[in-house]
């Protein structure tokens, strides 16, 4: 079943077209990689589908419903959740309270229920010491807290924008396994942005490749990574 679809989605910033005419879809239970060189438009694309910014033209559909111009908090309630490339902890709330926010406002749960649900989500990510201030958390814990906060929305579609960045290889492996388990259990559609191709290869069923805002390739990682245009985009980006 198609959860999320875009049609010719476009966003320009004063002449710079950050996302250009991108059409794609995400299916239930699918882990989709979103890759491309720096500045390709990956984060902007997630901002568009999660409602943080609005499109210049084109369409976003969630389960058949047009949500192109719906505000972010309403999309969160419908079932779209995300994390941020630059971490966004709520620093005057404790770890567990950060996670509760998703449950309270996206699901409309009371504080007691929200706490119980947040504890569950934290447990599935191996988070402990739940009453700590966010200033006391390690990078891995902050990343997990932000994933937990997104999961507390009880989403059907989840975007993870470079959550593995800044983690060492053991931590990365741990988080990959947890994300896979959670996605399977919850039948989530997950969109993953990562620069480390090992992560993309291991985690995703399919990838889309963006370059200068355009979707230039799509398919399983093994296939796409042999695509000459993709290779050129990466080499060109690195040069």
């Amino acid at each position, binding site marked *: 079943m198609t959860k999320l679809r875009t049609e010719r989605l476009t966003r320009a910033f004063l002449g710079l077209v950050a996302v250009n005419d991108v059409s794609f879809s995400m299916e239930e239970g699918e882990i989709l990689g979103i890759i491309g060189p720096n500045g390709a438009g990956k984060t902007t694309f997630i901002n568009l589908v*999660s409602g943080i910014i609005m499109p210049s033209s084109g369409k976003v559909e969630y389960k058949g419903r047009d949500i192109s111009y719906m505000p972010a908090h309403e999309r969160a309630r419908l079932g779209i959740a995300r994390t941020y490339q630059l971490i966004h902890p709520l620093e005057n709330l404790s770890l567990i309270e950060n996670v509760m926010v998703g449950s309270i*406002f996206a699901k409309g749960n009371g504080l007691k229920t929200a706490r119980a649900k947040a504890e569950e989500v934290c447990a599935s990510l191996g988070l402990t010491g739940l009453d700590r201030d966010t200033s006391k958390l390690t990078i891995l814990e902050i990343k997990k807290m932000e994933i937990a906060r997104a999961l507390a929305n009880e989403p059907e579609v989840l975007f993870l924008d470079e959550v593995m960045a800044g983690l060492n290889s053991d931590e990365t492996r741990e988080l990959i396994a947890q994300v896979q388990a959670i996605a399977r259990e919850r039948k989530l559609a997950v969109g993953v942005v990562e620069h480390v191709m090992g992560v993309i290869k291991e985690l995703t069923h399919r990838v889309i490749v963006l370059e200068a805002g355009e979707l230039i390739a799509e398919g399983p990682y093994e296939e796409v990574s042999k695509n000459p245009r993709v290779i050129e985009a990466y080499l060109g980006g690195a040069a």
Partner: protein
Amino acid sequence: MNRNLARVVATLLGALAVVLPALAGAYPLQVARNVMLYMALAITWDMLLRSGQISFGIAGLFGLGAYASILGVIRAGMPAWASIPFAAAFSALAALLIGYLILRLRGMYFSIVTLALAEIFRIVIHNLHDFTGGPEGIVAPAGVIFGGSASGLYWLALVGLAVALGASIWFEKSKFHFALTAIRDNEIAASSSGVDIFRWLLATFVITSGIQGLLGGIFVQSYGFATPDSVFSADFTLLPLAMALLGGIHGTVGPIMGAVLLGVASEWLKLQMPYGHLVVYGIIIIIVILFMPRGLYGLARKMARPAEGRAE
């Protein structure tokens, strides 16, 4: 340990507030009334501040409530007691309309617009001379509520404080705590978690303004008259702000502490320097912001458990 201590102090203060009329004479009761009034205003100012919005509009909504109350009595023939909840409703309704217009503004822009509110209301009241009494003010023919009984006025002020306190504690223990803190910390993260930012800000602005209007009604009925200069005085903005900052922001305890300290001091200051006392509040605000951003309560907590203090 700490929480028990706070509970003991709160119980003692509460007990003191209740027995005071039996012990104290008219003047101390009047000082207590003033302290309670400013304390309540400081608490309501802090409630909105928990969302990160700095309002300079206290005097505006307070004075509006004051005029709603006295005009309700004089022009609409309301009983004095009924004009007080009417004042609350009037300021709340005004805040709903104003909030719709200005709660999309952030930071300095929001603050500056709220600063203009008292001035705008004052000018309107000046100009609606026939209805409001204009610059000379207006006197209730029936005089002060409860026939001016010192203990009656005291109880009335205590009710006003109780409303503010109750609302503030409710905010701390309900979804408001999560909504406002999330908005203050990161609006983008908040909205991605489903927080309807505008709605929560509007609700908070309406509730706190309603209480400010209520306090304006209590104030004006305790004197039996209103002038634009007295009820829209910058005192009602600056003193509560200084109290909350001095005691500590983002919670109920700080504004209470600040109000007790500064409230008593300000009574004395007003006598010493009838015009200069505002300068002293200004200096207190600056010193606290520069050297003690979490106020006295924040300082006390830091000293009590330095290991758990939040990173500034």
